[in-house]
């Protein structure tokens, strides 16, 4: 390969920390190629940059670089009051802002010992599970897109639009809801909310079956994803992977069941675990399929929660000038992408001293580098897609 930007190569290698000898072999006479995948690559799902060292189509090494979407979420957290931080949590993992809002609200509620009304808990569960479905739909659709199937993408987006319509009706927003707030929810559900939800959930399962027929069980799709990038359970735990990725590796772990926060212990549903049906355990197909199956379970939870909404207030009385007691608190919640945890240190004033956001995508992404060894570029796209990264949360 003659001179594909040798100067550019130098810079990349320096920041990579490659040894000098290695750089020399790469610059002259080596058959290897250094390629930037991203930050504007279509299948890195945002502004993730991966530097690939490839031999032909085979990847020798893939080094992720991020921070292109770093918006100082933690620094901002130290400078705004607790409730005012909610709109910022919307924008962490912008595909599941309800869940983010909820995790933040629960963290502060735990810190301050606020009791949330039952009605609010039910509403929270419903909207969060709807948002989880929406988020998984995006993953399923874009994953098809990564592997060259266009139609599932728009079909899943059609379903997602319906969820967004429902959520828009109660919160007023379509992507960043800011609906779940400390002490409850912003506003009560609308009179038509329950009927719309039920109508949606009723027809939704059949739509999901169609997506399964179109994509999940397609032989080409299975060939592309099964046995690709298997992640063992031990490795997943050690690397701090959580959520669907951990479950796909065969670890039967879901916070909603194992650490039932809110009212999740009242519902009857199953945790979906990867079984390695089509290939090795914890391969890309498992990671994909765990999400698809989770969507069916979300429907179950939603339906049960819709049945049980009690009457009552939808928001606890939280003082306007809210000051939680001094202390520290760590709380995690099961988000569509894994366990989102907030670590808050309070000194008793209006603003937190420290807000740490432990984003699930961040920890999940750290596995990619190891998984990518000796993998084809096409497989790598499949693997990165299966991690369902949202860069807003990785970079914060």
């Amino acid at each position: 390969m003659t001179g594909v930007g040798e100067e550019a190569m130098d810079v990349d290698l320096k920041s990579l920390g490659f040894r000098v000898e290695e750089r020399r072999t790469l610059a002259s006479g080596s058959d290897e190629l250094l390629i930037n995948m991203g930050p504007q690559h279509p299948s890195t799902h945002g502004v993730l940059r991966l530097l690939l060292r490839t031999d032909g189509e085979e990847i020798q090494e893939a080094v992720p670089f991020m921070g292109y979407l770093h918006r100082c979420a933690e620094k901002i957290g130290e400078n705004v009051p607790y409730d005012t931080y909610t709109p910022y949590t919307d924008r962490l993992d912008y595909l599941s802002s309800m869940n983010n809002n909820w995790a933040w609200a629960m963290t502060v509620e735990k810190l301050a010992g606020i009791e949330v009304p039952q009605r609010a808990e039910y509403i929270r569960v419903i909207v969060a599970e709807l948002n989880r479905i929406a988020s998984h739909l995006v993953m399923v659709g874009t994953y098809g897109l990564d592997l060259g199937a266009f139609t599932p993408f728009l079909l899943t987006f059609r379903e997602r639009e319906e969820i967004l319509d429902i959520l828009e009706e109660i919160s007023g927003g379509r992507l960043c809801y800011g609906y779940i707030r400390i002490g409850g929810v912003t506003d009560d559900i609308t009179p038509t909310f329950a009927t719309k939800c039920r109508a949606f959930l009723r027809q939704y399962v059949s739509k999901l079956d169609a997506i399964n027929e179109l994509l999940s069980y397609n032989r080409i799709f299975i060939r592309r994803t099964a046995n690709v990038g298997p992640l063992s359970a031990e490795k997943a735990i050690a690397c701090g992977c959580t959520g669907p990725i951990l479950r796909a590796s065969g670890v039967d772990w879901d916070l909603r069941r194992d650490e039932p926060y809110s009212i999740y212990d009242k519902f009857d549903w199953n945790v979906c675990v990867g079984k390695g049906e089509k290939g090795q355990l914890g391969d890309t197909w498992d990671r994909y399929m765990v999400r698809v199956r989770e969507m069916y379970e979300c429907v179950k939870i939603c339906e049960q929660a819709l049945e049980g909404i009690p009457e009552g207030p939808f928001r606890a009385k939280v003082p306007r000038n809210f000051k939680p007691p001094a202390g520290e608190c760590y709380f995690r919640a099961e988000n569509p992408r894994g366990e989102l945890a907030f670590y808050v240190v309070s000194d008793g004033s209006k603003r937190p001293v420290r807000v740490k956001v432990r984003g699930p995508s961040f920890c999940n992404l750290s596995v990619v580098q190891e998984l990518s060894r000796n993998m084809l570029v096409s497989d790598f796209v499949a693997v990165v897609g299966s991690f369902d990264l949202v860069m807003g949360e990785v970079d914060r």
Partner: protein
Amino acid sequence: MVNILQEVFEGITTSLKGMKVTLRELFSPGCTLQYPDERRIMPERLRGMVVNDPSRCIACNACVNVCPVGCIECEGEGKGKERRPIRFAIDYRKCCWCALCTEVCPTESIFMSEDYETVFQDRTQLIRDFCSNPIPPKPGDKKRTTKPLGVPLSGRVAF
């Protein structure tokens, strides 16, 4: 050999199933709207652009203090009940449509309008001073101007 045949068979049958789905979609109606011509009916709680009605505003600065991004600038004049804004500017470049300001407003003068078309011809229009450029009253828009988001059932515990 058997494997290959099975593979081929599965490949063909699953592809045909997929083709059945796409064919069904081909004859089912589309779900898109031709936007400028057709419009969705927006929900009542839609969070459009934040606007302020200076005739009701008392320049209490509650919204300025609660705004997480600091997009509101307010200067008031007078004391007590006489207090009125002389400048109330919202910077839409910063606004994050969170509706926190509408909840704290004691007079319900600031609210999320139904205007969701946030395209402007130049940047200066993105900062709107509602004192010099007040919102035109909408006749059919009574409800939104009187009931902002998040009024708890038990009276006004504004937060």
